């Protein structure tokens, strides 16, 4: 039972997009809320806060993870990548980002950072071999604007570019 009369905080050191961040938060703070509310990294989106929509997808040690179901304290000492860390230091878009723009793989843009983080991992995992496979391995990221066919086209295009 949590003692509701007390609020305690813990110090955390998080490595995000290659930069080290220090923060002091309650142990119950999720990685998602740490990113958005404490570190001004609002590119990672909160759609449901229950691991149902995929909008908060980030990479932890290169694997896709739902930041809303991850406590910030769980990822101390691990390497976190968010959408803000995907483009090159000079602003050059990654292959997936460029493909999303070219294929118009988003409309409102709110699910897009999560889609892109999933797409990068999907390609890296070797699950972009066919349109069917892309659809299946991107199915955890909801898009209510309905950009799915264009997302498939973008992942297909980026996978070919990454391979070549």
């Amino acid at each position: 039972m949590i003692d509701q009369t007390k609020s305690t905080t813990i110090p955390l050191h998080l490595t995000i997009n290659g930069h080290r961040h220090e923060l002091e938060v309650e142990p119950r703070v999720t990685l998602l809320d740490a990113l958005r509310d404490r570190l001004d990294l609002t590119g990672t989106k909160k759609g449901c806060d229950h691991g149902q929509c995929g909008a908060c997808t980030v990479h932890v040690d290169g694997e896709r993870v739902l930041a809303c179901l991850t406590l910030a304290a769980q990822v101390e000492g691990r390497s976190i990548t968010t959408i803000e860390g995907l483009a090159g230091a000079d602003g050059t878009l990654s292959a997936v980002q460029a493909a999303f723009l070219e294929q118009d793989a988003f409309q409102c843009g709110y699910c897009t950072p999560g889609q892109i983080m999933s797409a990068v991992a999907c390609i890296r995992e070797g699950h972009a071999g066919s349109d069917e496979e892309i659809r299946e391995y991107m199915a955890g990221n909801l898009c209510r604007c309905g950009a799915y066919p264009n997302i498939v086209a973008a992942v297909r295009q980026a996978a070919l570019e990454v391979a070549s």
Partner: protein
Amino acid sequence: MTAHNIRHANTRHADSRHGDASDGAVGGRLSRVDGPAKITGAAKYAFEQQLDGLAHAVMVEATIAAGTVRAIDTRAAETAPGVLLVLTPDTIMEIKGASDWLGNPPTQKTYSPLARTVTYSGQHIAAVVAETFEQAVAAAALVEVSYDETPAIVDLSDPKAGDGIPIDAMTKEWGDAEAAFAAAPLRICAAYNTQREYQAAMEPHGLIARWQGEELTIWEPSQWLDGMARTYAEWFGVPFENVRLVSPYIGGGFGSKALALAHSAVAAASAKMLGRPVKLVLTRPQNFTSYGGRAATRQTVTIGAGRDGKIQSIVHRGVNETAIDGMWVEPLASVTSIMYATPNFSSKQNVVRVNTVVPGAKRAPGENPSAFGIESAIDELAHELGIDPLEMRLINYAEEDPEVNKPWSTRQLREAFAAGAERFGWARRTPKPRSMRDGKQLIGWGVAAGTYPVRRAYGEAVVRILADGSVEVESSSIDMGQGTYTILAQTAAETVGVPADDVVVKLGDSRYPRAGVAGGSRLAGVMTGAVYKAATSALDQLVGLAISDPRSPFHALQANTLVVANGRITAPRGDGPDVSVAELLASVGRDRIEATGDTMPANSTAEDRYKNYTTIATSVPHTEGDYSRHSWCAHFIEVRVDEDFGTVRVSRVVSALDSGRLYNPKLAESQWKGGIIMGIGQALLEEGIVDRRHGRIVNNNLADYLVPTNADIPDIEVISVGIPDLHSSVLGGKGVGELAIVGVAPAIANAVFHATGKRVRDLPITLEKLI
């Protein structure tokens, strides 16, 4: 500043294949200009602003559907760590009643966003504000509420619901429909149901409210800045000009984000009471009950026809649910009355009050369920007569609007049927149900048409030509993914004569020139018209200066006009100087040219303008004048139904659509596909499920309220068959955003019938209805 202005500074396309100069003109396939900001995480959505001293609010909602709040015990919450304020109906500051979206004055002197009398489960009854989000969430769970519960009317099928209230304004009648039906050689009658559906935009509703003295700034995703600003101003008794709404990007709206809601009032009130900015974001479950989705509907469609397939009579009766304390009418005859040439017609509609949040607008309110009825019924009639369903639609093709007896402005529906049928391969369809299969999969091909009216209104924009030759556009209209930023850049670029890359569009701030609601698929037509007008005026000033200013290099030329193209100014015959826009401005000593354009009627007063931008009362009817104006579409859909399990998969979609001229086909095609996909969800997945004991939506989350995932969606081909329609808008476009969802569900139901021989008239088409 809108964050995508950074695109020039810090993003470069790794791939330069997309886009060339012609893409920047109106009608070009320019990629989204706000795209780089959205794909890099730089786009700051409304409630992502970081403010000093920000407090966090969480709503507490009713757990009963009907009754009264007996007591709210806030003691534990008030002493929880970090808690700043606990609001109940007794402790929230007084808020004034506000006028409605038509501008009707308030019916109540005060407005209570926290309820004492509960009329639906999930209604807001209290709120907690704390230093952190986590503290607010924890304290909200400590608020103890006791109720006196009364029986609820849970939905339309509740025995207590009754027949409802007749809405006389919905009655449409011509000829003698009952007599013609009685005399018709062939008669069909069937009932069609659609369920509660939710917009389920990926970005939840929420806001940040900050008071500075009597000035209120609201960062809130909004489809209608000026309308919502008006509501806040009236609630808090401050002048309209004191309220600033900021909404640079909107994470999806689909009709749900046009109004300031109860939680909005609570956030603004708590910010005022605390003297601190407050952020309040609804949880995903609260997004199912804090505003209404599409009302559940029931229709009966009765058609009398000749053996030749010609419709002689349609009798239509409809019902939609509404709230105990709020009115929503979902116009169920909006497609029924115009799709086919019908000599005798009768439609009437009731609304039934149930214990729900008041339903609201979801993509194509009215047209969407209306099409499910009539486009299913016409398919049933075709089957009865042994006529091909596509042929049936052509036999009854309406050459003019049968309701108002006016010609269509444009109606490329015949062309849509032809183009879609050819691309889909409709001629290869075998008519008999269950006659096409692939192993254990029954294959069905269905067709249905859709339509959406052209809603027109007035807009305002400022266009500036700046010293560096770039162009700036400002408008308080918004971009929730429809592509407003992009098409307004294209409009300004083409009109002034500069590359689209040199145009910066600023939207989503109520300090900019005003705009009405981004709803009813009207914004693109309204705003391209306003920007065209402002940009033309700016261009006229530029050319005027170049010709007449003694310091201009063109002054000696004594030309009547000049050519501005690709950012350079030349004489029409090419016999004079060739200077850039920036050089011309420098030569005449100007640092900018500015023009405001609006499409309001001449002699409009300030009051007219205020009314136009802050209410929907001034919307111009689509049948005004000599024409009836609508977008049109035809969907051809293939389904595969597992013979043993009854699972339905949509395996192919070809849709041909007439939205008039497309300002940017790349973006319009995306919006069409999105509408089709939402229609697939409606047909196969989406249904708010009510717990009949408690009147509560039990699937109020994104795992249980099923929306389509990537794995549910096949390739979708969309074909534009539109032609410019200058009766509909200044630049010839008709509505895009809502059209494509209309007709998808009946096309799927018709395909399922063709596959299985089973007619499902009750959405969604789930497997238990097929086995």
